[in-house]
């Protein structure tokens, strides 16, 4: 496998913001919390968690806007031109949260668990058989 085959690219809808991740990620999960619902506009988020050294911007980093909720461990990064969600480094710096829908290709595996299952909406399409946690994955 050469280096390029080990990478997955992604970007926003207008194309201003582009990034790459290495094809190694520990977590691929759905989040049904009410905050993700607002930032995605849909029933839930589908996110990959990538190590910071396995992620890099390839274009338009200056177009990325960030919002962090006061007093909460939550925020959103998006393209300032088209509003599309783009990857966000967690406040702790431990991981980059990558919206799966922003990838150019299938990441090659499926989300393996759900967090904040107790916050799900009634109009949720049946997800695959995945483990479901009431809040965080450790609970």
């Amino acid at each position, binding site marked *: 496998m050469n280096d390029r085959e080990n990478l997955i690219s992604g*970007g*926003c*809808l*207008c194309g201003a913001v582009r990034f790459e991740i290495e094809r190694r990620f520990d977590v691929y999960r759905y989040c049904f919390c009410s*905050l*993700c*619902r*607002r*930032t*995605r*506009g*849909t*029933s*839930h*988020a*589908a996110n990959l968690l990538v190590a910071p050294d396995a992620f890099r911007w390839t274009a338009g980093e200056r177009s990325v*806007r960030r*919002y962090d*909720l006061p007093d909460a461990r939550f925020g*959103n*990064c*998006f*393209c*300032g*031109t*088209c*509003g*599309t*969600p*783009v990857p966000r480094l967690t406040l702790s710096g431990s991981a980059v949260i990558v*919206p*799966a*829908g*922003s990838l150019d290709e*299938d*990441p090659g*595996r*499926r*989300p393996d668990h759900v967090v904040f299952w107790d916050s799900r*909406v*009634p*109009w949720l*399409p*049946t*997800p*695959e058989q995945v483990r479901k946690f009431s809040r965080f994955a450790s609970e």
Partner: protein
Amino acid sequence: MSARVSGRCLCGHVSYEYTGVVGPASYCHCVDCRRATGSAFNIGVELEAAKFAIVSGRTKGYTKRGDSGNELTRHFCPECGSPIYTSSPAHPQHVYVKAGTFDDPSVVKPAHQSWVDSAVSWHRIDDGLQAFARRRQ
């Protein structure tokens, strides 16, 4: 049946109100909706444009021609990026509000899914929701 509904973005800069018939919720798997939501599909709820009002803040719009050939403007909060609604000159009487923005999620009534041919392998909807391979007929 007419209903009074409200919604807002994550940071609270943009909020809206609506009193009228809450139309069907459409699940869209097209490539643009996938990217615009960062998720597998978008869920848009059809509301009457004339009765839909942004009551605080201002949205920013991004316009692009979709796979249907229609121009779509996606309106989002410029402060926190939350998507709020989509409009199109092809359907000027309606706005399609993002299901995740409603203060009361119970107003969302799933009706159909479109562009299923473009759905990702990791999240197909197989629970009987009426499906269209491309645009809704």
